[in-house]
């Protein structure tokens, strides 16, 4: 096993204790993390879940009888490692609020309407080049209780598996130019400006479908510098 996932890469992540995001105060470790070598357990990971990806799971606009309300968009991109290699056959899961900024989750009490034609969950598998594509609705911003007049910038949650359990990533994709960026403690928990920019999708005119949907590109980079190329099956 020659794979290495340097800890240095993790500096892009937010600090676990980021007091501006109040819920981190009681849910972050108070003792130092224990440094350990990566063993076979950490360097392997689940390479399945794809069999659960049904034909239209990447299209969140066709899961119900009618079309959801809101602005139809295409969200696509590549999942790559730190050396720029596309990561094939990985599972990408996505969930989001509807166009009004309301989640279908039972605990979401935001007084904005639910959309009977929108669940807000999707999944896809990357192809041989690491490419994935979703069709969905642009989610709305929504208020939350972190502080007075707190609003989350519009975002789509992503869950991605790499080829090792230590490259597992859960993140949020944002939209370019959102006026709420300076005020959001979750977005700003990533303190490096360049790293923050990597969470913002780019408007993709070239792949926008005329008369149908705007397109945004969101490339996802997982840990894996110095990793040797995967053997393909």
């Amino acid at each position, binding site marked *: 096993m020659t794979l290495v996932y340097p800890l240095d890469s993790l500096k892009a992540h937010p600090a676990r204790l980021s007091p501006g995001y109040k819920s981190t105060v009681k849910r972050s470790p*108070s*003792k130092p993390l224990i440094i*350990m070598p990566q*063993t076979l357990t*950490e360097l392997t990971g689940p390479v399945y879940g794809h069999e659960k990806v049904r034909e239209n799971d990447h299209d969140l606009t066709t899961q119900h009888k009618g079309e959801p309300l809101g602005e139809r968009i295409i969200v696509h991109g590549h999942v790559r490692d730190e050396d720029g290699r596309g990561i094939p056959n990985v599972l990408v899961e996505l969930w989001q609020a509807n166009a009004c900024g309301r989640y279908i989750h039972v605990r979401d009490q935001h007084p904005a309407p639910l959309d009977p034609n929108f*669940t807000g969950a999707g999944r896809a598998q990357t192809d041989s080049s690491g490419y994935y594509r979703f069709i969905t609705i642009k989610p709305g911003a929504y208020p939350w209780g972190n502080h007075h007049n707190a609003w989350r910038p519009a975002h789509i949650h992503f869950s991605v598996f790499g080829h090792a*359990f230590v490259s597992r990533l859960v993140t949020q994709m944002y939209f370019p130019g959102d006026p709420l960026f300076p005020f959001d403690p979750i977005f700003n*928990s990533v303190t490096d400006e360049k790293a923050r920019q990597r969470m913002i999708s780019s408007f993709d005119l070239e792949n926008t479908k005329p008369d149908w949907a705007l397109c945004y590109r969101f490339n996802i*980079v997982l840990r894996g510098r110095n990793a040797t190329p995967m053997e393909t*099956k």
Partner: protein
Amino acid sequence: MADTPAGITPSQTVGPFFAYGLTSNGKYAWNDAFTNDLVTPDASGERIRIEGRVFDGDGAPVPDSMLEIWQADAQGHFSDPQDKRALPNSSFKGFGRCGTGGDGEYAFDTIKPGAVPGPDGKPQAPHVLMAIFARGMLVQNYTRIYFDDESSTATDAIMALVPRDRRATLIAKRVQGGGPVYRFDIHLQGDNETVFFAV
């Protein structure tokens, strides 16, 4: 567009509302990619349940966390082509996912893992790798679950890196009576804080 990226995509919290997408468990109009039941018909080994609760720094249960586990089969092989020893024909995948309930509770039904190769060439004690996600957690925490009835835990190379007075937080305790059940509580912070690894 295909330029070598300058760094990884930063992690963000899973938030409070992931259940309908990741741990639907029949409660929403969405199917689950993964469940908390890892047992497959062909899996050999001892069927066990690992259960416990997740607590925050005040000792309050965490009802909105998601736990994922990754483990070897009973022979100590991982279901991943990177593990060249992997058993063909085994449908045991070794990955599970569970959202915590209202009291912070969770449970996995699985197979007790076998010993796997360690960094020093010696086998590691049987263990399960766990990732913990939650609202209020900006990055997942990794921990390991060892078993209190495995004597090799005492000489495990990774366990040896952990301060002696904190090792008990990594050891699941077999519950007396009934089926083979192991108890493993997770404390995100505080005096009994579970050991989390930088890995």
